[in-house]
């Protein structure tokens, strides 16, 4: 059999068959492994959590799914708007809980801003920020730049020294970890399990915070490429505002695409690159499919492998000496 030509069509799949498979798996996992009565889904307004919530409702019905909207001071207003739209569309019970006061009490914003001021002393009230990745796709070594915008709209970009980069990320990670604390509060209260919402690209490349959005009891779409998640959203008839939402981190106060922060390419191209790598396609073939040089395609492959290595520990269980104590069956 000749190999399928490398192009967007390789990601086509039977959405209905896959939805049925996932919706048979969810109640089986809940009853046989997790022994919980329903699901908590934190809804960001993005495509992944929306599809997870919709599949959860299709699997269990709306009365056994609880939605959480957890905005903070840097969240886009559109996120909460789309989250409400989805929850109303699905007919689930949901709660909006502003986590900004909890984050402020923990020092999330002050620790982040203190690190930013070490590189941009003028940074203060009314300024916005984001981190962007640089270097890797041009054949260099990955590093990070801080972009800030003054209240007057003037932008500055500086390369982040390691110490400041780590402190900004560490402070920002409070957001995902506080959200997960809220997920589990409601899961414990309701005797439900927590849904994790990564797609295959995010899960493979470690694009999540350990003990934050990486923590969950089940991850129903971690095997689906992001392109396939969008197709599933349309198949499930989700509102257009959600189906056409552009993926963002919704974590920094300036708009930030996921490809700016983490991935080498926009998601559709990253999906294709990951598929090609998993199916042993050459860098030359990937380059032709994406309209980039073979050398650039090789760098994309190298970057995927490097991120796998660097983030492997994020999804790993804690290391033990020997086999550790026996786990109860």
């Amino acid at each position, binding site marked *: 059999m000749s190999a399928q030509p490398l192009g967007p069509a390789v990601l086509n799949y039977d959405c209905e068959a896959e939805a049925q498979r996932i919706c048979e798996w969810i109640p089986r996992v809940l009853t046989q492994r997790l022994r919980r009565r329903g699901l908590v889904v934190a809804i960001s307004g993005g495509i992944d959590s929306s599809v997870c919530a919709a599949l959860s409702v299709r699997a269990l019905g709306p009365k056994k799914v609880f939605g959480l909207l957890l905005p903070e001071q840097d969240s886009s207003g559109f996120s909460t708007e789309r989250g409400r739209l989805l929850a109303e569309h699905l007919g689930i019970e949901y709660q909006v809980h502003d986590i900004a006061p909890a984050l402020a009490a923990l020092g999330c914003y002050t620790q982040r801003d203190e690190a930013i001021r070490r590189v941009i002393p003028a940074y203060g009230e009314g300024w916005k920020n984001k981190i962007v990745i*640089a*270097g*890797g796709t041009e*054949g*260099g*070594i*990955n*590093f990070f730049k801080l972009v800030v915008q003054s209240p007057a709209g003037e932008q500055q970009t500086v*390369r982040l*020294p*390691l*110490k400041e*980069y*780590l402190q900004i990320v560490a402070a920002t990670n409070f957001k995902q970890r506080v959200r997960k604390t809220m997920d589990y509060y409601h899961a414990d209260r309701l005797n439900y399990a927590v849904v994790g919402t990564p797609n295959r690209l995010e899960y493979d490349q470690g694009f999540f915070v350990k003990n934050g959005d990486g923590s969950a009891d089940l991850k129903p779409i971690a095997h689906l490429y992001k392109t396939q998640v969008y197709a599933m959203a349309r198949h499930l008839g989700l509102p257009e505002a959600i189906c056409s939402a552009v993926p963002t981190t919704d974590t920094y106060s300036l708009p930030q695409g996921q490809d700016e922060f983490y991935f080498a390419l926009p998601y559709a191209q990253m999906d294709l690159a990951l598929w090609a790598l998993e199916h042993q396609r050459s860098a030359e073939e990937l380059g032709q499919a994406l309209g980039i040089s073979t050398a650039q395609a090789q760098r994309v492959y190298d970057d995927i492998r*490097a991120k796998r*290595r*660097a983030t492997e520990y994020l999804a790993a269980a804690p290391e033990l000496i020997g086999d550790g104590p026996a786990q109860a069956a």
Partner: protein
Amino acid sequence: MSSIKADVRRYIEDNFLLGAGAAAPGDDDSFLEHQVLDSTGFLELVAHLEETYGIKIGDDDMVPENLDSLNAIEAFVQRKQGGAE
């Protein structure tokens, strides 16, 4: 061996290899290929070089040709110190 290479090798041994038994990289060994450094490791190395040798490493300098082996680092630091760039 030059003091730059010896210093950087010691820095890598102290901060990345941690006495776990891995051999220190040879002069021409790629840190990337031998998985000695990841991207965070390179940022640590850059901070060390800037602090130790009083040089400023620009965005355009952040390429494997300058930083991915002991020999490359030695040549790069000497160029920077000599004001060639």
